[in-house]
């Protein structure tokens, strides 16, 4: 039996939901960051599944661009995390509730 398109969409939905729950539950800012990466990856799976089942290359180009945005987000986000840690000595997001560094 061949995997259907809906299987991939269901798997992507489950992964996205786990990532979203992680963003809400976790307190460590690096763990929240990794959960966001998980959500981005689940969306990538949706793009690739649609591109494969519709025989259209556009979805894979979207995946390419999403990966680039994720790399930029990783660089800038980890820089912000280092700056926050340097000023506050903690990675708990509840401690960083004020925008002023």
């Amino acid at each position: 039996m061949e995997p259907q398109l809906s299987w991939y969409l269901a798997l992507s939905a489950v992964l996205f939901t786990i990532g979203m729950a992680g963003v809400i539950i976790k307190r460590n800012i690096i763990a929240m960051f990794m959960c966001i990466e998980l959500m981005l990856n689940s969306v990538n799976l949706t793009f690739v599944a649609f591109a494969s089942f519709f025989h259209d290359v556009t979805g894979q180009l979207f995946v390419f661009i999403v990966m680039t945005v994720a790399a930029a987000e990783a660089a800038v986000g980890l820089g912000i995390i280092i700056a926050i840690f340097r000023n506050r000595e903690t990675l708990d997001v509840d401690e960083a509730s004020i925008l002023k560094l």
Partner: protein
Amino acid sequence: MLALLFILFGGLAIGCALAVVAQRNPLYSAISLIGVFISLACLYVMLAAPFIAAVQVIVYAGAIMVLVVFVIMLLNVEEEEHRRPRLRFLVPAAVVLAGVLIAEVAFILVTVQKSPALPGANTSDVGLTQSVGSALFTQYLLPFEITSILLLMAIVGAMTLARGGGLLPPRRGVNNAASDVASDGANGD
């Protein structure tokens, strides 16, 4: 056969994703996240997208996760302890919201099942590097160039943020290992 592979890699991805959320230590979460990325790369290969699978392993499991692990070790993060009772209600709220989201998507999937059958996968050259590259450099050249500008902005922003002094006020308080290493790296250049 393909269904078995899908169940194998999909189950591996879901298990590793649950481990990402369940682990207290961020380093274990990072290792589990690498497992998710590898499983998704295998699924991309099953979906006849070898180029995306290779980029997934190289960029995500290689570059981004090395950066994350490097930062975790640089900051010497201890395990999460003493979770204060404040905001405790967010945990059941997250579970309830996740259940609602899953229910919504399940409803959509049940509805969409009535759509006409799609042609199966694995029968075209859509995922090959040649077709991806030709589409990327002809029809989608503008997004590609915008992507390069975005990466340049990210490089400048990351250097500005992670470097001590400059935009941010100089560090105060005790000298910890993290800020010493970071400022040494910035001054050494």
